[in-house]
């Protein structure tokens, strides 16, 4: 599946792909968190025939319906299998010392033993973020580890 990604200066990003049935579907991601779901005209691929404006929350719900829930579900299964492991979703609040800093800066794994396995941002799951990944307020960090370890990670994100 090829996804076409275009930057919309001053607005955000646009992703468009063609389904196996030949329909073009796209999402305009506004920086404000708004999402526009765009479905293109069969006969004129330049034109959106329908545009649905979604708030960040609605887009999140739609994504959930379309399958984002899968990742968290799988994690839950994982920690059910492994005794003593818990999965926590730690939100990055506005004003967190790590808002705008990288995953590497947190040194979370060496400090707590817990692992950051994914970040949920605007209903999008970024699996296995790299050390250079930059957090921003509003992210939910998915942490796997012992109960103490995940709690320690939550403290790191709250107060450094």
């Amino acid at each position: 599946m090829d996804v076409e990604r275009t930057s919309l200066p001053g607005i955000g990003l646009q992703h468009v792909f063609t389904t196996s049935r030949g329909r073009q579907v796209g999402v305009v991601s506004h920086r404000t968190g708004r999402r526009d779901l765009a479905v293109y005209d069969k006969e004129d691929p330049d034109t959106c025939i329908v545009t649905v404006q979604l708030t960040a929350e609605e887009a999140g719900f739609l994504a959930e319906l379309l399958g984002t829930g899968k990742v968290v579900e799988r994690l839950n299964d994982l920690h059910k299998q492994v005794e003593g492991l818990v999965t926590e979703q730690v939100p990055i609040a506005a004003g967190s010392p790590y808002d705008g800093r990288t995953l590497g800066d947190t040194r979370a794994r060496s400090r707590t033993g817990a692992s950051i396995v994914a970040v949920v941002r605007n209903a999008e799951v970024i699996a296995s973020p790299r050390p250079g990944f930059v957090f921003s307020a509003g992210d939910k960090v998915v942490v796997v580890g012992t109960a103490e370890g995940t709690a320690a990670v939550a403290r790191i994100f709250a107060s450094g």
Partner: protein
Amino acid sequence: MHSIATQLIEIGAIILALGVLGSIAVRFSVSAIPLYLIGGLAFGAGGLLPLDNSEHFVEIGAEVGVILLLFTLGLEYTAGELVGTLRTSAPVGLADLVLNAAPGVIAGLLLGWGPVGALALGGVTYVSSSGIAAKVMGDLGWLGNRETPAVLSVLVFEDLAMAVYLPILTTVLAGAGLVAGMQSLAVAALTVTAILYVALRHGNLVERFVSSPSDEVLLLKVLGLTLLVAGIASQLQVSAAVGAFLMGIALSGPLAHQAQRLLTPLKDLFAAVFFVFFGLHTDPADLPPMLGVAVLLAVVGIGTKLGSGWLAARRAGVHLTGRIRAGAALAPRGEFNIVIAGLAVSGGADPGLDSLGSLAAAYVLILAVAGPLLARGAEPLARRISGRRRPRPQLDTEPDEPDEGDGLDAGVPRQADAPEDEGLPDPGYTYKQD
């Protein structure tokens, strides 16, 4: 006698009147800019209600309005986007500049305003209103369309061109001699380069200084820094507006969003005051003689923007409908055009340029209203040219299954309820939110 009480009464009356005008604009979903201008015309010299006590406040408020307009515009772009746009869309951007500035320059010379007036009027006819254009595209559901990135690139290019043009205009208007003019231009170029360098290379330093978990602290720091930079830029003959624009570019990322959220209400207030101030300084009696020229320039201005849009969309590999949409989206003129005219009128040593203010006011009044109307008529017009019927609901069914008729109206884009195959809606048409 400027007692505080009378000043408060006047300022309150102005802002309340703006609120009422704004509610009318919202009701008919048109841009409020033309209404604010009309409000200013109604209040000012030769208008219904001459205001003289609050003149000073309105003047400062207008200046702050311009600064905040440009600052929030700069916030919308990251330095990287600007550089990227310059790389990719310079040819189209230059074509847009030549096409759209030419009518203004020619008209300025024909009206006998000399090279300075021609330069200012060229700027007035050149710039599209990125604010109105973005709103129109959002309202009509055009953001996902294939031509939209090209349209936005043209708008970014125009805003960048302003960063170069405004210092030149300010210098020329000040009536500086050649040597002094060259000097201040060199200072302007240096200042712009310095701010851009800081923004591109050390944006994080600025952000680290401004950043604060408290909204209150952030607001004070950002507003203070912006006004300070704008003031210094103005002192260096770069024009306060450009300083503010570059300051906006220097901030990016989450901080820019926070700053935007905090400053938007202030921007709305002071920008409205600016349009009123401009209207106040335009004598309504000057409008009728300029009306003919303004209508002519507006018609030409729509034509040249259609040309720009056509070129930009064609370069993006988009076909007829999208090319017409792109031109229509670029047609509205608004805040920037008034900013340029305001500079020409207030900064000009030449009293002959006062009528340029009236011309610009009439021009923007026409295009801020006609531009969005034209955009609503763009798709019917394109269908008329290409002879396609109105798109029907498209269900994702097997190709040989018949469509479900018109029971599902969801596939039809939201548009004004124009009858089939009607061209432009007639100008008396008002659109309602459905």
